[in-house]
């Protein structure tokens, strides 16, 4: 088992490097002019060139990338923001925890809402418990996350005046962003859990359990559910990607201090170092979460677990 985890951890290194490369390469498709961006439109061309040269911005692409990676992984240096002239790391880091917390809490909430509804809908197929949540989740699948957030804002902040519309200073501030973040993936989780559960209920081993004389409760919760949860866990991992995307939107919509809103706010200013740094950090976070999901999966599926236990024994 440890071997499996270790293997996955080692695999994380090329993944992070590859992701860094992709993002860095994409951002360098068009040649930027960082010196000009930093010094402003009025600076002398000679000064701009000198500045670019000093920071190594006039080097060939691969050279630049190697320098960037060295600075990034050896010194934790993401460069200097064109906009604030502050080290990027100092700007991103305090917001990082906030974004990750938001995404993880959103994932948790979406699971807590979506999975039980999905199970129940499958068990009570064709009843109101199935049709009503299914129709609602179908509708939500057609609503962009930011529209869900805007509707919540309009109803709870403007019309009812129950909740504050922006900021993150108290727990009450978190209610709407959390809901806006969790509702779309919750609908997705519900749909997915339902179909996985329906699939599982139809399996032969569920009939075997009934033939043993197990009460319906045991048949559903012990035999069907445990098998149905395997694909749901994978799906949850994938939803996290959507949750990070959702976090960007929700942070922007509710003016929350996360990396997503930072990236979006700096787009009009062409603040490349912040955008690259923020994107890399969020991607790394996503990769780590996927790894955790894989390990969890290996723990709950004996078929995968056994493979690695055996390997350890040899």
């Amino acid at each position: 088992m440890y071997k499996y985890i270790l293997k996955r951890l080692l695999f994380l290194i090329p993944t992070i490097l590859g992701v860094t490369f992709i993002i860095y390469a994409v951002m360098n498709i068009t040649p930027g002019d960082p010196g000009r961006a930093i010094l402003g439109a009025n600076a002398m061309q000679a000064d701009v060139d000198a500045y670019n040269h000093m920071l190594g911005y006039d080097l060939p692409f691969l050279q630049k990338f190697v320098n960037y990676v060295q600075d990034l992984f050896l010194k934790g240096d993401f460069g200097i923001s064109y906009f604030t002239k502050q080290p990027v790391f100092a700007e991103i880091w305090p917001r990082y925890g906030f974004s990750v917390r938001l995404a993880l809490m959103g994932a948790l909430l979406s699971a807590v809402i979506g999975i039980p509804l999905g199970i129940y809908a499958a068990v009570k197929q064709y009843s109101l418990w199935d049709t009503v949540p299914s129709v609602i989740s179908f509708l939500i699948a057609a609503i962009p996350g930011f529209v869900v957030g805007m509707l919540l804002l309009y109803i709870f902040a403007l019309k009812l005046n129950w909740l504050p519309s922006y900021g993150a200073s108290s727990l009450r501030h978190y209610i709407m962003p959390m809901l806006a973040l969790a509702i779309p993936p919750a609908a997705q989780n519900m749909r997915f859990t339902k179909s996985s559960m329906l699939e599982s209920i139809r399996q032969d081993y569920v009939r075997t359990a009934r033939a043993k004389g197990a009460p319906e409760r045991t048949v559903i919760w012990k035999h069907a559910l445990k098998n149905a949860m395997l694909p749901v866990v994978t799906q949850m991992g994938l939803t996290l990607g959507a949750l990070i995307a959702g976090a960007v939107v929700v942070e922007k919509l509710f003016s929350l201090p996360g990396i997503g809103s930072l990236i979006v706010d700096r787009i009009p200013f062409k603040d490349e170092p912040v955008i690259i740094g923020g994107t890399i950090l969020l991607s790394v976070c996503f990769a780590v979460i996927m790894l955790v999901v894989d390990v969890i999966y290996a723990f709950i599926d004996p078929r995968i677990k056994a493979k690695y236990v055996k390997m350890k024994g040899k």
Partner: protein
Amino acid sequence: MSRNETDKTKETILEIKDLKVIYQTDAEVIEAVNHIDLNILRGRTLGLVGETGAGKTTTALSILRLLPEMTGKIRGGSIFFEGHNLLEVDENWMRALRGNAISMVFQDPMSSLNPVLTIGEQISEVIRLHEPDLPRREVEEKVDSTLNLVGIPASRKAEYPHQFSGGMKQRVVIAMAICCEPALLIADEPTTALDVTIQAQVLAMMSDLKHRLGTSMLMITHDLGIVAQTCDDVAVMYAGEIIEAGTVEDIFLNEQHHPYTTGLFQSIPDINKKSDRLKPIPGLMADPANLPKGCAFAPRCGQCREICTKEHPVLTAWGTHQLRCHLFASSEKEQERGAE
């Protein structure tokens, strides 16, 4: 409860009367089982023979009341087990019966075990369900002894199904079925999914267990070889009907047969006869959603007469041997009629 009274060998343990089962879907109604009668005697094995789709599995699932909830419907008849009509008792009664007094071995061992539970957990679950007061240690001992009984070392009980071969998995399924010493064991093509060599092993083991535990058995199969090897009585099923029934001797030694049974025998090779060719039964089984009016076998029957396509044949009986065919009904009219 009365398992020790082995002297009453002729006692009927399961009596199916006039059972009618349909599958209802949006598009059509499939008449899977049409008014069948079956008796299983205590300590004896009844072989239920027929090709795929004849309604064998449906009959078995009806006994346990495990037909697919949305579509499978029992539309009449009765199933008496130890004096109670299983179609009338409540669900709790059935649950206490399943896995305990009546248990079932399914066709495909690959899919009938839960992949995420160890085999020990799956066997002990049956015991804990039916003997909830048994201390944990004794449950485990019982699991161990049952595993030994089916020829699996008890040390493997912490392993998961995927770690076993097909034959071993079927042994696990059988262990689950016999660990509460059922009065009736239903085996639904227990060896179809297995290799021939493994088949023989599993069948020998089942016969052995049956004698040791005094269990009655319903052996569902399409293989006449298995019938000859393991059964005491035989019922041949075609398109949801029992078309011929009797003891193994009746079926294998008597001269008179339903043309379908004759066809079944001719489609297996006989090493003692130097026949040039096997004679498979021509055509396909009647569509159970659209059964013919007269005898269901008439369209494939080589001896089909006019009456066969018009009138449903009645049961003719000579002692234990019963036939449902116009060939015999007309010539032996004075013979006693079978149960209607």
